[in-house]
């Protein structure tokens, strides 16, 4: 149904929205709702986030992906993993492998490992890793639904789409508990549900505190990715081309609006390596992409403005 102009005004007498703040999967979350979340729902949200972390965090010794990394063989993932792995199948194909969950090993070699070493691996460690050949999602993981079988140790990293996927899982939980209007914001990766659009600043990746534009989001998801978000050395950051293990250059920030947060999250990473026209053959989204030379491009249907 088209949104009418009258729906943009908050009804008179509506109280300020309620906020539920918490930390999960290593980042700050905020859920905004017109009325306060009930304690039972808050507990379920925290449990849901914890369950996700226990499955997918490669920074935890007790996680399932750590078990996969240590013990080749067959591992059974939770039922909700199917949607995430299906998305990765499509992202791997659409980016010709630039986005690949097995980039985890390369991240470790560059120093983004469970101990936050943040120093690149020595020559011997890198040589040992390279002797065994590059790992790829298509070649090294045999998947049957949520059952993954590996023949050698592989490091799964769902950093490209995992946080967005968890935002979607939390949104689904809220709807199941009767909440129809909400904003779930996991530090810039967010989903909005409700009549009233929100305006989101697109933060300048090189000038904190300033924005290069504004996105208007209503009943959709927005995710941001910036190569300087986590930088630990000269040219070393967390957005890697899985084919080469090298950090992406040239593109310095991306923002994607899509129907769900997992997709927006994955595409925000994919746009560092793959042209929008190529991704549009597979996915429906709008975007803004900023380059190292200070220019930014936007898709025709991007709702919002850029400051030029």
């Amino acid at each position, binding site marked *: 149904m088209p949104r009418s102009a009258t729906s943009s005004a908050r009804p008179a007498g509506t109280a300020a929205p309620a906020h539920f703040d918490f930390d999960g999967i*290593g980042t700050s979350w905020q859920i905004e709702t017109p009325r306060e979340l009930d304690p039972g729902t808050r507990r379920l949200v925290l449990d849901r986030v914890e369950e996700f972390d226990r499955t997918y965090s490669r920074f935890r010794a007790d996680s399932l992906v750590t078990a996969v990394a240590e013990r080749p063989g067959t591992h059974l993932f939770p039922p909700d993993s199917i949607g995430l792995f299906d998305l990765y199948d499509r992202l791997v194909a659409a980016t010709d492998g630039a986005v690949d969950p097995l980039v985890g090993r390369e991240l470790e070699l560059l120093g983004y490992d469970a101990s936050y070493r943040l120093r690149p691996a020595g020559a011997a460690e890198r040589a040992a890793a390279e002797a065994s050949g590059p790992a790829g999602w298509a070649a090294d993981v045999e998947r049957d639904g949520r059952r993954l079988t590996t023949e050698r140790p592989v490091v799964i990293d769902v950093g490209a789409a995992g946080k967005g996927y968890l935002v979607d899982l939390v949104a689904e939980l809220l709807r199941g508990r009767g909440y129809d209007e909400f904003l779930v914001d996991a530090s810039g990766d967010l989903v909005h549900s409700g009549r009233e659009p929100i305006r989101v600043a697109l933060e300048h990746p090189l000038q904190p*505190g300033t924005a*290069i534009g*504004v996105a208007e989001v209503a009943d959709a998801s927005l995710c941001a990715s910036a190569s300087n978000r986590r930088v630990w050395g000269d040219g070393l950051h967390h957005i890697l081309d899985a084919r080469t293990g090298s950090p992406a250059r040239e593109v310095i920030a991306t923002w994607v609006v899509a129907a769900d947060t997992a997709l927006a999250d994955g595409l925000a990473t994919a746009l560092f390596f793959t042209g929008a026209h190529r991704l549009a053959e597979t996915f*429906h989204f709008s975007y803004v992409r900023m380059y190292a030379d200070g220019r930014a491009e936007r898709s025709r249907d991007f709702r919002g403005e850029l400051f030029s």
Partner: protein
Amino acid sequence: MNTRQKKLALATMTGLSISAALAGCATDTPSSADAETVAPSTSAAASSAASTPSPDASSDSGSADASSSTYADGDYSATGGYVSPNGPEEIDVSVTLAGDVITAVTVTPDATNPTAIQYQTQFADGIAEVVVGKDIDEISVSRVAGSSLTSGGFNEAIDAIKADAS
């Protein structure tokens, strides 16, 4: 096959020479992730590219119909070369002509060097504008999406390294 139709702005590509000597009003069929482009220049562009447009087999340049078209209708393609900082690269441009008007343009990046791929993709998707930062406090927004929001563990590790190093 890329069926999306784009406007083409040859004149804005400094340093890129493509010998498409025709330009006109392109039809414009936005799709979800087509980028904005600027309007086409009216007639471009003598160039030094080694290639020239040639009609496909399906169009016969000698038998243009009785209309006053200067050019035969049909699909044309050309490959343009340019020298990037990483060496020579090529870009493919296809146009569809009807009554001397370009009705479709497809730009296909053909680069092998990653940097060139990036810039060609940028061209294929549209012309990017230089953007400037505005103070977030001065624009009316309720959320911020960007790079200053980093995870706790990561920031602690960076702080520890800085402390080690000082």
